[in-house]
């Protein structure tokens, strides 16, 4: 009996040793998960994230992340299987692909950041120029409120773009720039088209300007007002002898068409009265003969063709007067000088002095 039992134990021990040996071999042969590849993928994703790939290369970055997630899910799935039946080849494939995509995303993002940054900087500089152009050429023009609002909104967006750019948020800055560009471009274009329409009268202004110089050649004093330049110049013997800064009617761009349009008229006029003391509330004034025959003809034609309302009046009392120097165009259509300059002009000219008012002496090409 003892011998039989001993034999049995030897058998069990043998089986146990065989099983353990088999287990050991199985462990050695069991497939290893691709930990190294997964770590590399994770590090590559981390690098891509630091390179702002989520913002600047979102599709490639998301693809890389999804591949990493797929690798992890697949690994977990393989772990549920019997250890000898596990197959980590797909996990490895996903991890390696994730690494590649993450590296692509990082490189793409670095490139995009650089590109966007340079685009934003260029755009800010270009829009800055356009704003300056508006301020230089159009700001002083009596534009409609919607044009002014559009320009101001554009400027505000540009300020937001600059702030986002300074904070390194180039993508947001780019969006602000795009919005600013739309507004600034539109306001500039609208202002430009108004200016161009007004400058259709330039040939006449040029002629009137030459006429002023011609008239002054015999020693006579002639006043020439350049509305765009806001200058009131006294000519004598073909030369400018005095020059004053002038302020005009609120809607000075364009010829005066009727009473109340707050426009400063354009054409050839004469001083009909010199007023001072109680005769004027604007320090001193030179009354002009507005409306002249041309104005009357144009007014009648406007009424006839319906471009002026039937009840419209032609207006009058256009003067060169004092109380100017406010830095804004504020009159109802008159030309305002500082009191000091008005005194000088008042002394220089007499009743009958020609006053020639033009839109601009410079062509549009010189204004831009």
């Amino acid at each position: 009996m003892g011998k039989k039992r001993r034999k049995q134990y030897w058998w069990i021990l043998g089986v146990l040793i065989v099983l353990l040996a088999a287990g050991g071999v199985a462990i050695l042969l069991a497939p290893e998960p691709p930990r190294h590849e997964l770590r590399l993928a994770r590090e590559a994703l981390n690098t891509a994230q630091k390179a702002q790939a989520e913002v600047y290369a979102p599709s490639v970055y998301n693809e890389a992340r999804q591949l990493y997630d797929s690798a992890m899910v697949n690994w977990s799935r393989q772990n549920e299987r019997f250890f000898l039946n596990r197959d980590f080849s797909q996990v490895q494939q996903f991890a390696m692909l994730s690494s590649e995509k993450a590296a692509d995303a990082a490189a793409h993002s670095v490139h995009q950041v650089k590109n966007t940054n340079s685009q934003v900087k260029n755009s800010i500089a270009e829009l800055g120029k356009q704003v300056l152009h508006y301020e230089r050429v159009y700001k002083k023009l009596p534009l409609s409120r919607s044009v002014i609002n559009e320009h101001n909104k554009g400027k505000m967006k540009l300020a937001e773009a600059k702030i986002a750019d300074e904070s390194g948020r180039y993508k947001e800055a780019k969006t602000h720039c795009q919005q600013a560009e739309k507004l600034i471009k539109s306001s500039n274009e609208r202002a430009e088209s108004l200016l161009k329409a007004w400058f259709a009268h330039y040939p006449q202004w040029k002629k009137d300007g030459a006429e002023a110089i011609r008239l002054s050649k015999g020693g006579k004093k002639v006043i020439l007002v350049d509305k765009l330049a806001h200058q009131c110049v006294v000519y004598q013997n073909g030369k400018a002898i005095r020059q004053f800064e002038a302020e005009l009617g609120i809607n000075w761009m364009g010829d005066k068409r009727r009473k109340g349009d707050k426009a400063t008229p354009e054409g050839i006029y004469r001083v009909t009265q010199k007023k001072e003391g109680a005769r004027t509330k604007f320090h001193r004034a030179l009354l002009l003969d507005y409306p002249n025959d041309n104005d009357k003809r144009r007014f009648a034609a406007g009424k006839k063709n319906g471009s002026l309302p039937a009840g419209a009046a032609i207006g009058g009392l256009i003067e060169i007067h004092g109380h100017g120097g406010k830095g804004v165009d504020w009159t109802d259509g008159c030309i305002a000088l500082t009191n000091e300059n008005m005194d000088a002009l008042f002394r220089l000219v007499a009743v009958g002095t020609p006053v020639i008012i033009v839109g601009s002496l410079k062509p549009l090409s010189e204004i831009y």
Partner: protein
Amino acid sequence: MLVVTAVCIAVVFSSCGKAPQAEIDAANAAIEAAKAAGADVYVAEDFAALQDSMNAVNENVEAQNAKLFKNFSKVTEQLVVVNQMAVETQAKAETRKAEVKLEIEALQAEVSSILLENNDLVTKAPKGKEGAAALEAIKSDISLIETSVGEVATLVANDNLIPALDKVKAAKEKAVAINTELNEVIAKYAKSRR
């Protein structure tokens, strides 16, 4: 006897270690809480590091799951660290967010005060026949800033603090520019009246 041996071997081979699921769930919840507090926006680098740490932990969990003799004690230790990181990141995000909010509030107050001053200056500027058009343009500018300040309040209410900060900074810049312009016009006007 053979059966007993087989069962023992099976138990040994299948192992007895279990992943610390409760700790994993707690760490994920802490990361979500940090994100909800705006960590991905206000402390983006810290949040990225936190996510990376959690991914590393997940890899270690699977590495242990792949083993015959599982040992999650290191993973549990790592989860404690991740949890702590999440709490700190959330706190940092909340602090930064509060700072941004305070900055916005201060700027809003500043803009409001400049706008009040500007509205007052408008009443002192040349008006009526004298400068009405220019004032209209300035008034339209002021109303644009007021609209912008209203938009800032909406952005703040919607928790969009960074765009709100940009907007209020731009509004301040514009308000200051108008203030300068008005003061210059008034000074010039006063000079011309002397």
